[in-house]
């Protein structure tokens, strides 16, 4: 099946306008006849559910947390980009578009990224009107700061809690619709399967996490906004509950999965402290605006107190290697640079897996008060976790898995290869290419939910003309039965090992063999190990409790089971991509100076994988990335 990206014709700057005119509409009185099932209530899910309900559609929204306000978008700290050019520093829609394409190492779809930059300005207006308390200047106007991968100040922020405030804005819009009765909310409800009827996505199977009951819901379309798969690595900055289950089960029902090997490792996280570690904590990239990253020049100095190491014995390696971007070099580059200096034995802190992020110069220049105002909550957070005062000693940071650019393949309308199934936000693959720039995830989640899907979904209803089936039809009963069988199988294994122990083992293999740097031998080893771990999982797992009632062990086991399968696709994708680009770094493919070596001749495509059945190799489909407007250059931040 050839992949049709449905990119509109015409000049880049006019594609979205033209497309919006070409899209078929549903008349207001008819909208209420259509029911949309939205899974996930983060920025993308909540904004989509609220907006669809405002337009008049019937909406059901599902999340596994106890409230839609808990979705992991809430943890985003730094900010959201928009091409407002309020600072008069040369920003424009085109520049945001170009920075994003370049930041993504020329592996994103041009038309999608341009649209993202276009609607970015509407997002800020929308959020301000909702009462998002963005940072302001004394004159009352919105404040901006700069972020990695950009030379203009276009990032809007609400202290170090921008994700929280934007999510609360979307959550409040959603709450308003719930109050009005246009959205029915299902918290503590986890999607466990997609139901496809006559080739169209028409429903989902869910487990009520309180009663344990498995049931299904039918709709005219299904929207997945279920986030990324970073937790396949076990340790990541994602919340404990983040998982790949919804998009993975959709993959098994025919929705192609694209570019899973594009995983982002964030350079500024708090280093691992021990085996018990349950998650990693990110320190916002915004810290790199004022903090300077360094390690000692000599290995022998690494155990000394940082304050006792003189200036000329320090290696400010980002400033040295990338003079024009310095400490604000993009995430993939900064992460790899940290790994390199630690691999050379110049890392600091316990385990020598850390580098310093030093604020002493900024405190001297701006005064401590200014630093408290800008980053106070982050310094507090650091102290809670490490017991160290970063105003006095430099922070120690190390890269950690943070975001996943890959995801379900979608066309320009955000529809997957299963008609009627739409995927938004981090869960899809479309806008960030091989690497995402800071402050762009919030932008994409809200763009998809507020300003893209509400237009494109109507076109699907108007053209597909598929009746909504009953949730008691055979397809639904079958899917429910399959889910119950899986649940019972997990409960009946009665082995010796816990879901967590398997998850940790799987994560270690991935982090070592498919993490910041990958190579053919390592990936092949991982592809051998993963099926072995999976086999043991399905023979030696123990899940306590029953299918009825609250059973967190069972919920977790189901998610780990999907990670076990997904991990293989991730490694397979990484192995097939014989080039280095963005977050995917293959050690065999690098320039003499260690920079990523892209291969535009052979790999300028999105790799979309099609499921073929259990224990069968997936089939690769290629969507060629054609750049009409930008020239594919070598990414340089020097």
């Amino acid at each position: 099946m050839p992949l049709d990206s449905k990119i509109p014709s015409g000049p880049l700057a006019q594609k979205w306008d033209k497309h919006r005119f070409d899209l078929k509409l549903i008349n207001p009185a008819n909208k209420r006849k259509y029911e949309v099932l939205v899974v996930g209530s983060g920025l993308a899910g909540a904004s989509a559910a609220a907006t669809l309900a405002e337009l008049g559609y019937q909406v059901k929204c599902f999340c596994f947390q106890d409230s839609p306000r808990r979705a992991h978008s809430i943890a985003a700290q730094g900010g959201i980009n928009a091409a407002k050019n309020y600072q008069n520093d040369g920003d424009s829609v085109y520049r945001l578009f170009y920075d994003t394409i370049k930041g993504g190492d020329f592996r994103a779809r041009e038309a999608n990224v341009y649209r993202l930059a276009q609607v970015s300005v509407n997002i800020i207006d929308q959020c301000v009107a909702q009462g998002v308390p963005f940072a302001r200047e004394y004159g009352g106007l919105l404040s901006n700061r700069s972020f990695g991968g950009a030379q203009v100040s276009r990032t809007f922020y609400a202290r170090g809690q921008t994700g929280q405030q934007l999510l609360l804005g979307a959550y409040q819009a959603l709450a308003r619709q719930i109050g009005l009765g246009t959205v029915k909310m299902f918290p503590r409800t986890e999607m466990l399967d997609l139901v496809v009827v006559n080739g169209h996505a028409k429903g989902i199977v869910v487990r009520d996490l309180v009663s344990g009951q498995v049931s299904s819901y039918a709709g005219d379309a299904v929207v997945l906004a279920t986030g990324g798969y970073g937790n396949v690595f076990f340790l990541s900055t994602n919340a404990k509950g983040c998982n790949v289950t919804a998009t993975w089960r959709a993959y098994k029902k025919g929705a192609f999965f694209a570019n899973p090997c594009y995983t982002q490792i964030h350079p500024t996280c708090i280093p691992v402290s021990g085996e018990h570690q349950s998650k990693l904590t990110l320190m916002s990239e915004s810290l790199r605006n004022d903090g300077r990253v360094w390690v000692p020049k000599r290995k022998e100095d690494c155990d000394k107190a940082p304050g006792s190491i003189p200036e000329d014995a320090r290696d400010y390696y980002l400033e040295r290697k990338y003079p024009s971007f310095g400490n604000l070099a993009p995430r993939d580059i900064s992460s790899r640079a940290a790994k390199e200096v630690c691999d050379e034995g110049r890392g600091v802190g316990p385990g020598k897996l850390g580098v310093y992020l030093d604020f002493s110069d900024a405190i001297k220049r701006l005064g401590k008060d200014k630093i408290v105002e800008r980053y106070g909550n982050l310094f507090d957070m650091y102290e809670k976790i490490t017991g160290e005062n970063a105003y006095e000693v430099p922070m120690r940071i190390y890269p950690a898995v943070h975001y996943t650019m890959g995801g379900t393949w979608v066309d320009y309308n955000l529809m997957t290869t299963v008609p009627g199934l739409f995927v938004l936000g981090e869960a899809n693959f479309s806008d960030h290419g091989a690497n995402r720039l800071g402050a762009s995830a919030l932008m994409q989640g809200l763009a998809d939910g507020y300003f893209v899907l509400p237009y494109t979904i109507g076109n699907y209803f108007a053209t597909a003309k598929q009746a909504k089936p009953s949730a008691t039809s055979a397809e639904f009963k079958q899917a429910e039965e399959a889910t119950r069988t899986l649940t019972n199988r997990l409960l009946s294994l009665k082995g010796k090992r816990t879901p967590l122990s398997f998850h940790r083992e799987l994560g270690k293999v991935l982090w070592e063999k498919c993490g910041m740097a990958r190579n053919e031998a390592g990936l092949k080893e991982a592809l051998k190990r993963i099926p072995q771990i999976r086999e043991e999982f399905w023979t030696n797992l123990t899940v306590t409790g029953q299918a009825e009632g609250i059973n967190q062990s069972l919920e977790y086991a189901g998610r780990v089971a999907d990670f076990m399968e997904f991990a293989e696709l991730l490694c397979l994708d990484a192995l097939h991509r014989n080039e280095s680009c963005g977050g995917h770094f293959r050690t065999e493919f690098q320039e003499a100076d260690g920079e990523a070596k892209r291969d535009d001749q052979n790999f300028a495509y999105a790799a979309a994988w099609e499921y073929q059945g259990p224990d069968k190799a997936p089939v690769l489909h290629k969507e060629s990335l054609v750049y009409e407007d930008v020239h594919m250059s070598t990414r340089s931040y020097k």
Partner: protein
Amino acid sequence: MNLTLKVWRQKDRNSPGRFVTCEAKNVLEDMSFLEMLDVVNEELIERGEEPFAFDSDCREGICGMCSLVINGVPHGGHRGTATCQLHMRHFKDGETITIEPWRARAFPPLRDLMVDRGAFDRIIQAGGFVSVNTGGTPDGNAIPVSKEAADASMDAAACIGCGACVAACKNASAMLFVAAKVSHLNLLPQGQAEKDRRALAMVKQMDAEGFGACTVTGSCEAVCPKEINLSFIAKLNRDYGVAILKGK
């Protein structure tokens, strides 16, 4: 260090609960409180016993999903700290730690340490929003907002909706939560049009959910992981009073 835990066990809303005692061995000071519980739970599962059910998600103090009354204090009693950010370096070897769920009539128990905080969502649904639809909004800089107002609004908006304020209150009042949300929006120009309606509707829903009355003892502020200021309750009382006086 080795610790003794007294943990609340309850099968579901309709079954009686009780404390059970268990040991937490070889606890490291770098562990978070929830990581310590993870380790205890792993041992329980390995022995074929059911783990203690507790809520958590982000584990960095922002999602508001974690709870736990630790030694009688919600979130364990360290200033501006949620349970997930509490680290074991604050405990001593040999200590006995009591762990309970939030206790409030409006937060019915679900299992062990988990409770249902749906009442908070319903309060927001009653009026904790600005009624704007997507699209058609003015430029973000069209209405200047003074830095003071934006900062004060942000102070209130920092609330994570965890419910510690209710758990700490002898009356299980939700005033600090409601005050934070009302103030967040009522302090901004964008929230003015619905200012009166918002205060009235949210207080009405709060009462309907069964939260108790506020006597301004300040225990809520003391345990709030986001250090939401008690003065917002004064602002809520003022906004509510003005709305009543206007005859709304």
